[in-house]
């Protein structure tokens, strides 16, 4: 186990996994609360266009992906809020437009499908030192805002009308949640890939919900599970020679299945136990 820490590429991979594993569920909890669990998927697709734009222009794909995904996040929130387009239709347009734009621009840039695959499915073992810095800075930004603004973001996601009457800037914070989701996707892009990033935002939250009774506990437990899944996935992929992205997501899914089974069994035990017993 400690042997893998001797390799600089694994050190970088594990660092990226730590920030990804914490940041993705930190913002994902708000998306699930808002019933926008699939937003991450839509933004992941549009981030692909950002990556392709980077390949075409020679700019850092991570930065172009952040810019394009954040712009997409603002657009979808504005469309949703204006009521002109339903949330799922706006998401569908992002899916199609993002994939089409990404593949088209990658082709124009003369890049191979293998390059695109690095971003679609993650390539954590090729993460450079500068990548780690970008992931760390963006990850800390997402984590800090998710925790410092917890009462306000929770209110916006839980009861938007009440939050508005209370003076919370619901429009601004709605956009902030979407933009933080876009930033998180870019953070997680090199770890789990754009196609699987949404899983790391949603599955740890779903798993945590099986055992928690409060929003705060769900938020924190989901972050813990995300961390375990991301780091565990990187380690397992090294030991088992599997791809890190899918390994991370499958570990998160296993955690969900185990938590759900424990909940069902515990529920049955409680029902069987005679009334009054302790």
């Amino acid at each position, binding site marked *: 186990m400690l042997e893998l820490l001797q390799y600089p590429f694994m050190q970088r991979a594990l660092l990226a996994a730590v920030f990804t594993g914490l940041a993705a569920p930190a913002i994902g909890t708000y998306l699930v609360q808002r019933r926008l669990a699939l937003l991450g998927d839509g933004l992941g697709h549009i981030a692909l266009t950002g990556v392709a734009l980077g390949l075409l222009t020679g700019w850092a794909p991570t930065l172009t992906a952040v810019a394009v995904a954040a712009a997409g996040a603002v657009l979808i929130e504005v469309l949703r809020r204006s009521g002109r387009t339903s949330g799922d239709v706006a998401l569908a347009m992002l899916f199609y437009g993002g994939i089409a734009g990404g593949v088209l621009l990658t082709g124009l840039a003369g890049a191979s499908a293998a390059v695109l695959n690095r971003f679609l499915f993650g390539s954590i073992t090729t993460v450079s030192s500068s990548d780690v810095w970008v992931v760390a800075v963006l990850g800390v930004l997402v984590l800090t805002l998710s925790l410092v603004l917890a009462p306000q973001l929770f209110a916006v996601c839980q009861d938007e009308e009440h939050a508005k009457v209370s*003076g919370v800037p619901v429009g601004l914070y709605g956009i902030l949640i979407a933009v933080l989701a876009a930033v998180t996707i870019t953070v997680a892009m090199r770890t789990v890939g754009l196609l699987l990033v949404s899983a790391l935002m949603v599955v740890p939250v779903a798993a945590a919900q099986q055992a928690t009774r409060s929003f705060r506990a769900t938020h924190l437990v989901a972050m813990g599970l995300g961390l375990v899944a991301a780091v565990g996935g990187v380690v397992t992929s090294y030991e088992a020679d599997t791809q890190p992205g899918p390994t991370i997501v499958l570990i998160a899914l296993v955690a969900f299945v185990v938590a759900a089974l424990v909940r069902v069994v515990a529920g049955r035990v409680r029902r069987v136990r005679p009334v009054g017993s302790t």
Partner: protein
Amino acid sequence: MSDDAVPAQAALRLAGVDVDLGGRPVLRDAGLEVRSGELVVLLGPNGSGKSSLVRAAVGLVPSTGTIELFGTPLARFRDRRRLGYVPQRSGVTVGVPATVREVVLGGRLPRHPVLGLHGPADRRAAAEAVERVGLADRLRTPFTELSGGQQQRVLIARALSNDPDLLVMDEPTAGVDREHTEQLAETLADLTASGTAVLLVAHDLGPLRPHVTRAVVLEHGRVAYAGPCDAVHDEGHQHPHTSDPAPVTPVPGEGVW
């Protein structure tokens, strides 16, 4: 306080308020005032515009006309800690479980709407408000595990937790049993006695009746009656029975929404 006849500033004043929703008129030329220490109940059949009126009053639906909170036009009103709002039915999204305490703490947000975590004073106020609605033992219970009536009481506690000067409540007794409606009536009586202004939508007066300062009856989106609640019967729809009702002018083309 002096007995000089200086009229208290209205906590809430609406005059000539129109609301259109989806291109349809739902409220026309509505007006009312609620002053400090008054409990004003808004009555009327389903679709008469009661909810639209209170939602307009707190800025949740666009409207024309005059709406003032404590003398300040709604668009410029910033002192949100003076306003408490209880929605008609739970708008609480349940994607992730939240405890009663977490929901009620939302009522303290006007004190730090942009930035700031809940502190011990917020948690204390939330616990007191939950106790006030008789749910002290459910503070850590997930909101979704409560009955509809209990959820409604949690939303009332959320509004009370901030100790507002004006409380706007859209059918707070919907789904709440008689015992807890009586408890709410006592709570509202205490609040108005201490100077809080309350505007409340209800289907009937029930246990609230002895504490009501004034009833306002809406019909077809217009104020059909405003005055003492003695003239208002609880049975069936709230048709005012008074010798001198406010004239009701039908709006051309409008039916019962």
